[in-house]
């Protein structure tokens, strides 16, 4: 494998990893943009999404097989279910706290995260679940660079979801309302926007994107574990901060930057893959010190 091959392969790996990060980061950024809450339970929604997808797939695999059709079906169902879970969490745990100090609602989010991960731990006995699909290992073999069709499909679907989201936020009335609430909630109320409903919608979309990423991760990596949301939650948070928290294009960009950084950082001689997290979180610290608004985050005025 020549150096060029390694660069190309890592470019592909970084993009795949980055699109997972981006999908999860979107939820962080949307929720932060609209109610200024760092929803630390977001990574756990990703995890729950994976488990729901697994459950649905094992139920319907007899009917439609566990290939792409079954996976798509279980992904859609998982997105709906986890989106709903996100709204329920918001109603139960966050709405009563909206007027409380920011720190209180942050702690509530941590508690929700614990409830979700420990709940799943209790149900699954802390065991690893095998997410088995019928997807083969075929792919594009470009000399020494290999990209499987599964990887391609996952990146394309992640991009599709992000494009749909972008269009939704910028071309529809609901999207406009979301952006407006991000700027000034009270003014929106005066303009007759149903603020609570739009906030719920934001949670729904953010959570279902996390669920989509969770199912994709299950399909791609093949195993599920109650703790899998923790690290990715932190990484997605980092991605959101890199891009500028509150900014939707920023979250997408941040995810890709982080994925590529990890892919290339670990290829530096004498620095192994055990340094992956050091890169990510080191970057987070540097960014928070030198450019806390992130790459695309502008001023405090526009957030979505």
């Amino acid at each position, binding site marked *: *494998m020549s150096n060029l*091959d390694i660069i190309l392969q890592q470019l592909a790996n970084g993009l795949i990893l980055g699109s997972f990060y981006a999908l999860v980061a979107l939820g962080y950024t949307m929720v932060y943009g609209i109610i200024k809450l760092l929803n630390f339970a977001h990574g756990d929604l990703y995890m729950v999404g994976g488990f729901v997808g697994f459950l649905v797939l094992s139920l319907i695999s007899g009917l439609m097989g566990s290939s792409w059709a079954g996976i798509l079906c279980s992904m859609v169902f998982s997105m709906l279910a986890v989106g709903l879970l996100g709204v329920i969490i918001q109603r139960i745990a966050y709405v009563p706290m909206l007027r409380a100090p920011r720190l209180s609602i942050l702690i509530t989010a941590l508690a929700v995260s614990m409830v979700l991960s420990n709940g799943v731990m209790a149900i699954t006995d802390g065991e690893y679940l*095998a997410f088995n699909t019928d997807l083969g*290992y075929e792919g594009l073999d470009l000399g020494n660079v290999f990209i499987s069709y599964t990887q391609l499909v996952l990146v394309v679907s992640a991009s599709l979801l992000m494009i749909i989201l972008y269009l939704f936020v910028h071309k529809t009335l609901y999207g406009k309302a979301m952006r407006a609430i991000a700027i000034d909630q009270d003014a929106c109320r005066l303009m007759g926007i149903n603020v609570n409903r739009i906030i719920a919608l934001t949670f729904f979309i953010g959570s279902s994107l996390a669920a989509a990423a969770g199912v994709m991760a299950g399909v791609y990596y*093949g195993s599920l*574990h109650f703790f899998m949301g923790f690290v990715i939650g932190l990484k997605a948070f980092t991605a959101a901060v890199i891009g500028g928290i509150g900014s939707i294009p920023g979250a997408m960009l941040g995810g890709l930057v982080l994925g590529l950084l990890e892919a290339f950082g670990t290829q530096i001689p004498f620095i192994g893959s055990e340094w992956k997290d050091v890169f990510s979180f080191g970057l987070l610290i540097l960014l928070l010190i030198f450019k806390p608004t992130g790459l695309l985050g502008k001023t405090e005025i526009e957030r979505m």
Partner: protein
Amino acid sequence: MITKQVKAIAVGILASLLIVGQGWAADVKIGIMVPTTGSEATAGKDMENAIKLAVDEINKSGGVLGKNIVTITGDDGCDPQMATAAASKLVSNDVVGVVGGYCSGATLPTLKIYGDAGIPFVVAAANSTKLIDANPGTAFQINSTGFDQVNSAVALFKEKGVKKLAIVNQGDGYSEDLARLTKEKWTGMGNEVVAYAVVNKGEQDQSSLVTLIKSKRPDAVFWTAYYSDGALLIKQLRQAGYHKLIAVGDGSNSPKLLEIAGKAAEGVYCFSNPTADYLPAAGDFIKNYKARYHQAPDAYGPLAYDGMKLMADAITRAGSTDKAAIVKALKETKDFNGITGAISFTDKNTLAKSNFVVLIARGGKWMLNK
């Protein structure tokens, strides 16, 4: 108060009955030291069951030196302090030998206690390399130590014509140890370790590592850590088009690895302690165990069973229940024919020939590699 006194009296009567019962003149008293409570109780109970099964078989076929064997169990709780108490209890009960030892940490402090009393101790499962240095000469390890797994691994790689090896661990004591020892041994034999990598626990995406490994073109990849992340590495290696040999250490010896890695695991090698499923000689043992306890023996049952049989064999060869004579007989053990393999000892009282077996994944199951 009254109930307490009644309890105390009742316990006293029971205890004296037990002492009288166990002190029956013509019996040979053997101590069992395993964890029967606490986190490792399942494994400990399994070993106790296996030992008692062996005792029954021995007694049925005439016992040793014409006497029956009786056992007394000391619960080490997989805890060094509890183990010390358990060992003292067995010593004060005047056992002629002890079989057991599951947790290395709990077994370690008891070696001196038994050693001071001159009691021979067959260590059935515990296999930390630390036990070797702490052995006062009266303990005998019949499970392979960490060094033996390294030897098994290196032997397999040599047999398969491997030249360049990649080793991956998770940076924890166990997997790092195995990785380091393997690396030392492999390079010491004049071979090359082209990649020596560490991955973080719970990291799902190992694509960077896979690219690194592929770029070094190793003939074999050796994963020394546990099954959950090992399955992901195997899967991602195979997905990325790495088709050569993959081997995993005994921490990955789990059906779960095969379940998670799916068809990617096909043909993967695994080094394992001699668990009943893979022992051709263990058929009767499994059958009798199931008949008596209505469950399948666990991982260390066969070793515990062998340990008891070995102890009885040594007593027979010693021709008396004199402890020093039994120790001498144990030391002179030559190819004792156990269900886990032939047992002989090195001058350090460790197993002379590794009992590690090599497994291979075939059709979603671990099978003995032939």
